[in-house]
């Protein structure tokens, strides 16, 4: 279906140029054309038909970089606590490989119970730890998947796996696939935007939102915390809006003339790109200006204008989907709770959970209050979970763990107040309904009206997919 649309688009272009002569009359004709219609017909960002009727239009992915401990947040394991200090039975770990196998994690096989209190929340009775009091209050909006499974246990490859479906660099991230597949509704902003908060950038950096072999038009555009919100957004000093407009008009006039002389539709796309750039110069500063929000809204998130924070980013995420941006991804560090300095499961864990708790709950509430939650799929999770066995560093921590970890989903046709999958008594692996990252990807695309087996791109001689050759839609997650 996507292919047909693309074909049609190029047909339309050819038609346009086939019919137009080379004279000034056609320049006038082109400038008389509705700007938006022209931009859309020429722009790969333009909304495209999905494979079937979508449940969600937009995605907000709250990426908890570093691997949050499911055992201290969502996966309550009294048995683990009871057997704290005992060795984990060999049957669990035989043949498994872990990070830091040869150093700090060597011989680490002692079970480690959580130090956090858990209680049940909402009608659905979801267990949530004391670290997430606010998220607990929206439990009835969420589907919690406790049996997520990934393949790779080092940060950068695992993050790539969560974003691109493979640990190899150079593949498109989910946001790129989605904007490639269905375009964006935003006329004034890129379709895939990325925001970051926390003490450092996520491991792997920009490759997490890169478009890989898809055209760069589909790469995630970082909304920057300081300086220009988008790279090179501000005109050089001494160039105000009028002067910029005049310059772009001159460029446009020269380009239109050349388009008519050469018949090259690429010049029309260039003209549309300059128009979009000009609109972004106005729309992006307006977007990041959260001072215009009511005090009640700012307080709901705990957002403070002018301060870079996860809370501010959650509020910006809502403002982005309001403006039709298709895929918004927020990264927050650092969840890497090994137990070393600044990685403790006590003080540092308190801090990172507090950073995100209120804003996450606020985002759900705010989207719902504005009628946006039905159309917006919110995803919360990191690249993997943590081991039920303790890791002995300066303080007791947990190592990277790929066999089971928790993620939650809300809105966008996801079943509210819903629990999917159960782990074994230690939260080591799935006891029921394992949900592999490929399955999660298939489900996310499904909610957007995309068949993960049909969303393909040919590269290096084969048709690539976000889900590689696997993935099945997880029916239990759907409303």
């Amino acid at each position, binding site marked *: 279906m996507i292919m047909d649309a693309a074909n049609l688009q190029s047909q339309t272009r050819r038609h346009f140029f086939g019919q137009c002569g080379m004279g000034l009359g056609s320049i006038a004709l082109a400038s008389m054309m509705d700007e938006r219609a022209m931009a859309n017909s020429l722009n790969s960002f333009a909304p495209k038909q999905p494979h079937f009727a979508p449940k969600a239009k937009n995605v907000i992915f709250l990426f908890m970089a570093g691997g949050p401990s499911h055992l201290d947040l969502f996966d309550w394991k009294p048995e683990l606590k009871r057997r704290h200090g005992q060795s984990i039975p060999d049957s669990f770990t035989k043949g498994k490989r872990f990070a830091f196998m040869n150093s700090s994690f060597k011989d680490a096989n002692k079970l480690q119970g959580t130090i956090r209190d858990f209680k049940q929340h909402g009608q659905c009775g979801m267990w949530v730890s004391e670290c997430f009091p606010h998220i607990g209050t929206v439990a009835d909006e969420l589907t919690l998947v406790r049996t997520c499974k990934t393949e790779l246990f080092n940060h*950068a490859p695992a993050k790539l796996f969560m974003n691109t479906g493979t640990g190899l660099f150079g593949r498109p991230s989910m946001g790129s696939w989605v904007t490639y597949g269905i375009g964006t509704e935003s006329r004034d902003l890129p379709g895939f935007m990325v925001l970051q908060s926390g003490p450092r950038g996520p491991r792997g950096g920009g490759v997490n939102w890169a478009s890989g072999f898809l055209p760069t038009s589909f790469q995630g555009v970082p909304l920057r915390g300081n300086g220009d919100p988008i790279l090179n957004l501000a005109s050089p000093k001494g160039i105000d809006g009028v002067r910029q407009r005049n310059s772009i008009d001159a460029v446009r006039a020269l380009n239109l003339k050349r388009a008519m002389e050469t018949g090259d539709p690429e010049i029309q796309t260039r003209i549309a790109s300059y128009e979009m750039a000009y609109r972004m110069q106005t729309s992006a500063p307006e977007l990041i200006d959260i001072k215009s929000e009511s005090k009640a809204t700012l307080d709901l998130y705990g957002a403070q204008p002018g301060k870079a924070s996860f809370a501010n980013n959650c509020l910006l995420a809502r403002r982005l989907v309001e403006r039709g941006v298709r895929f918004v991804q927020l990264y927050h560090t650092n969840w890497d709770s090994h137990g070393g300095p600044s990685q403790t499961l006590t003080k540092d864990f308190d801090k990172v959970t507090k950073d995100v708790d209120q804003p996450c709950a606020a985002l759900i509430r705010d989207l719902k209050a504005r009628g946006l939650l039905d159309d917006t799929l919110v995803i919360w999770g990191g690249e993997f979970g943590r081991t039920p066995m303790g890791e002995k560093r300066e303080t007791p921590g947990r190592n990277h763990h790929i066999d089971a970890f928790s993620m939650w989903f809300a809105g966008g046709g996801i079943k509210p107040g819903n629990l999917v999958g159960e782990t074994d008594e230690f939260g080591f692996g799935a006891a029921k309904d394992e949900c592999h990252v490929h399955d999660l990807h298939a489900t996310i695309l499904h909610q957007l009206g995309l068949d993960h087996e049909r969303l393909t791109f040919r590269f290096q001689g*084969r048709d690539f997919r976000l889900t590689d050759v696997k993935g099945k839609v997880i029916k239990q997650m759907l409303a």
Partner: protein
Amino acid sequence: MSNSTRLIAMTFWRTIFCISAFGALVLEGGEGEHWAFLKPQRHNPPKVKQADWPRNAIDYFILGELEKKKLAPSPQAEKTTLLRRVHLDLIGLPPSSAEVHAFLADQRPDAFERVVDKLLASPHYGERWGRFWLDAARYADSDGYSHDAPRVMWRYRDWVIASFNADQPFDQFVIEQLAGDMLPKATQAQRIATGFHRNTQINTEGGVDKEQFRVDSIFDRIATTGEVMFGLTFGCAQCHDHKFDPFKQVEFYRMFAFFNQVDEPRVETPTVAESKARAAHDAKVKSLQVKVNGAEKGTDEQKKNQKELVAMKKKRPGATTSLVMRQRKSPRKTFRFVKGNFTRPSEEVQPGVPAVLHPFPNQEKANRLEFARWVASPENPLLARVTVNRMWQHHFGAGLVETENDFGTQGTRPTNHALLDWLATEFMRVKWSRKAMHRLIVTSATYRQSSKRRSDLTQTDPYNQLLGRQTRLRLEGEIIRDNALAISGLLSRKMSGPGVFPPQPDGCMNLGQHARSWKASTGENRFRRAVYTFRWRATPHPALKVFDTPDAFAACTRRLRSNTPLQALTLLNDPAYFEINVGFARRILKGRQGSDAQKLRFAFRLCLAREPDAAETKILSGVLQRELAAFAKTPAEAEALLKGYETGGLPKPGLAAWTMVARVLMNTDETITRE
């Protein structure tokens, strides 16, 4: 976005096409008879009706196909267009005013051939064409993966450029990169060449299993060798037998065995200057040593010399290092990995090559050097084809086989099989001379055609596969910058050496795991060609990345040409480009005396080689007059605009107005396009 749209559409057609191609393959008898596995055949060029059009053999093949569809080729491009095209294609820099004048005045029948010869002899040719090879070699100045630590690898980059400039025969070029270290009496340059396969990523993240990443590097080496030198997807057989092409998984591991005997050291590779400095130092040490040895022991002078000698020995000048391959002494055994998983070794395998390709000559001496010779052998049905196909791709926008890295059964068939094979055999006939092939291609009538669209061609051949015209191509990221620097007169033509740091906006280096610094180079290094820009993998230079320069995580044999608003923001607002615009304005004001109209013409010709017409002149003088008036009225705006930039002592209102004109010209589509 015609290219992306095009690719999407292609995927659609290919899906259908492949089904039929696959069906046809079965009819032909299946495995082993796919066209690309058979040696290229040299057929005589076809007869054509329009006999006065062809200039060389290429044109007969092209015209033959056009005439079958009753299509005529396009007229030759304007002389200025042609000159700018061939300059940008061969050296990646625009012609100077003097070069334009000289070419327009030269009425000799071989005026264009003379230009081509001059360009192929220019050292800038190696910078231009070496960069494409560096894409394929996934060259970068950092390790990749999450830490992306810096590495010293520029000796390899310079080796590639030098090889292009020396027109080293391509088969030798390949052999040295795959196994230069194993050649008899291997030179330092030949060892540096093996850096080709040391451009793999290195993972220095905590907690990793080193063996896993060693194995991953070898996977990458095989996939890259397949893609770059065969146009085949060997990598597909890493986990299972190839789904479409006749490669068995075990054959993947036979090739793995060649690369499994590689050690991966970092070695000193002193430059000429470093070697000289060392030799001078060593001579000094030696003479002092003689003095010390000769002197009577215990004397003050002897003690003083002895002390000085010890100090001097510690100060031996350093040498640049490079990552190279080295054959290891104690061989490793190689196993097939079940599903490509290195923790699941299966049966042991011996070195070898896929059976469907040409035979490996010397199984007893099956080592990496023999493998390299096998790859570069004239018996290889693919090396010459994929290489000329990529040259063609750069000169026309698409290869004769559009899937330039997949000549397998899933790739597209050649649009002109006879021409592809003729070019491949010609490449071997001219002893693998790359310059000879470029000369042949760019002096053809096919290359010289106008790139203007024609409705009859658009109807019959919408993707221009028959090449009844040339193609307009947006310049590559590096060339957009090099071109702007050349136009503005700021360009430094200094070659080689460590990577440099042209300015970029603050904050871009924070996007990786580590916030690194990017201290912008000053002086000449600020304005070097982009092939010398330091290449971080995780945080590539944003003004290059935005124009689709590859990130070097894997081999790249074809760049996309996207067309996005972020590119517009870069050219309009990036302070680095603005600095170039101010430089361009200085050049216009200082380089051309006379009226504003004359200055405008001068500026226009610097950008586009051609003269502006009346409409263009009107648009640009409109900008100039408006800005001259505005800055004269409020000189403070001119102050603000030029603050921090070199004014060259020119009055600011005038310079500001011309900067605005320069900026419009630099942002024009035609300036960043070769037509």
